[in-house]
């Protein structure tokens, strides 16, 4: 070891951070507009990862699309074909859940705890569904082993990591443009700021909420598939276990602030990876948890939270 902090761990942490960011930005937008913690967010990641597995291994495989090892990557183009479908299905499922469950609770004037508990129920149901359909064993996307890239300064990373970071970057920039340049994006930010004022301003906040679900669930779906690629495995519990880094990033960045969530995710991702230099990697999730506790104690509005 030449430097104090191994650069390779930092790079890996940034890749992990970009996956956390996709999930956390959706989670924080949902919190902003619906004012409750969407506990099923991790399980939306899981279900999307499995949907891609299903689309690759059944319909695409049946019509002869079985390629693996696209360029330097372990997976083949069928994964790229399957990804948008998984995103759409996850978004559609989220809209149906809102109309069937959350909207009813909202109209009844249910509090934030009731809403969060309902989403816990949804989380358990989604995980159960995954277990029933795909079983509890570890699964993998069809893949081909590839050599690691050698970057300067002795950094070696799996090629898939570049793909993940690239997708995360494109999606994050698209989200930024959506929030700042489009009518629906501005309406989402207005609703998160002050829901009554948004309604008085002529914004149909029920439509805004449905769009928030589409975007939040879509981002979670991308995060879930990228996580399955990065870890080279799928497990029914993968998304549930991801909740702590997600919530740490959201709270670190100030609840409701997607830009804060992005940087919070990078901090959580890098800290957890770098910490493995000194502690056993199996304690990685504890790092995110420790960050969560420290932020809640010292800066409950997050490190970027300035307004009251």
């Amino acid at each position, binding site marked *: 070891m030449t430097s104090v902090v191994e650069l390779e761990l930092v790079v890996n942490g940034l890749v992990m951070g970009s996956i956390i960011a996709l999930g956390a930005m959706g989670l924080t937008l949902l919190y902003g507009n619906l004012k409750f913690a969407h506990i099923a967010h991790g399980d939306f990641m899981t279900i999307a990862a499995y949907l891609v597995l299903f689309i690759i291994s059944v319909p695409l495989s049946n019509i002869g699309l079985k390629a693996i090892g696209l360029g330097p990557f372990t997976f083949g183009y069928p994964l790229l074909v399957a990804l948008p479908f998984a995103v759409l299905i996850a978004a559609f499922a989220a809209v149906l859940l809102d109309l069937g469950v959350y909207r009813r609770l909202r109209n009844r004037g249910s509090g934030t705890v009731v809403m969060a508990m309902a989403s816990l129920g949804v989380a358990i149901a989604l995980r159960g569904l995954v277990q029933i359909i795909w079983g509890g064993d570890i699964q993998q996307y069809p893949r081909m082993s590839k050599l690691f890239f050698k970057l300067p300064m002795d950094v070696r990373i799996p090629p898939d990591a570049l793909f993940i970071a690239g997708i995360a970057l494109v999606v994050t920039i698209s989200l930024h443009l959506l929030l700042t340049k489009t009518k629906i994006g501005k309406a989402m930010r207005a609703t998160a700021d002050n829901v009554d004022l948004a309604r008085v301003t*002529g914004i149909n906040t029920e439509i805004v909420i449905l769009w928030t679900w589409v975007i939040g669930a879509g981002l979670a779906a991308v995060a879930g598939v990228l996580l399955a690629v990065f870890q080279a495995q799928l497990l029914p519990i993968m998304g549930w276990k991801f909740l702590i880094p997600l919530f740490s990033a959201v709270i670190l960045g100030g609840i409701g602030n997607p830009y804060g969530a992005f940087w919070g995710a990078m901090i959580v991702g890098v800290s957890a990876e770098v910490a493995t230099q000194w502690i056993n990697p199996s304690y990685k999730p504890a790092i995110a948890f420790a960050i969560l506790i420290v932020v809640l104690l010292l800066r409950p509005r997050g490190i970027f939270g300035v307004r009251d």
Partner: protein
Amino acid sequence: MILEVDDIHSYYGLSHVLFGISLSIAEGEVVALLGRNGAGKTTTLRGIMGLTPPSQGSITFQGDEIQGKPPHAIARMGVALVPEDRRIFPDLTVRENLAVAERKPRVMAGGWSVARVYDLFSGLEKLDGRKGGHLSGGEQQMLAIARALMGNPRLLLLDEPAEGLAPLVVRRLAEQVRMLKEEGMTILVTEQNLKFALELSDRAYVIEKGQVRFEGTAEELAKNEEVRGAYLAL
């Protein structure tokens, strides 16, 4: 009558706040709704806007029943509310605050645009890219009224617009409201500040404990010491 409120009763949870409020406003009129803190002024405006829908009574706007409609639908019909507090979007820039409120005008001519709003509120243009939350109280109030105008309202509801503003800022605000009045805007304004309200309005209602106690022209109210003493803070 552009607005007719007929015998509305409102509740917050179990507490009964409005006990049969009735009022009406003609096109182009500026009407003041006066009363002490807790008299029911804000609840009346929230009732008209659909934010706190009354449990009984009827509210018609331009002849259409609006009681029971959601706030965004009432806003799009041409009613705009400038609330008492939290009246702008703090995380949105000045321009974004205006952009989210922009609606196509109902009549071909005379629709409000960002440029026209910047003309009326000359201080706003140079704050274009500033976040709403970073504006001063007076600037926020200007932005709040500008935001309401962007929806091309036929009726403007102002909830205690002078509250918490410095005297000089209140003067400028009164000027701007008077300009809107000259353009033919119909306005219902709640106030505790009698002077500000009487200066601008044609007629006034005084409410106390959720009931109308006085109705008359601004001059009648100005002369009526008894009503002023009994129902209004001095």
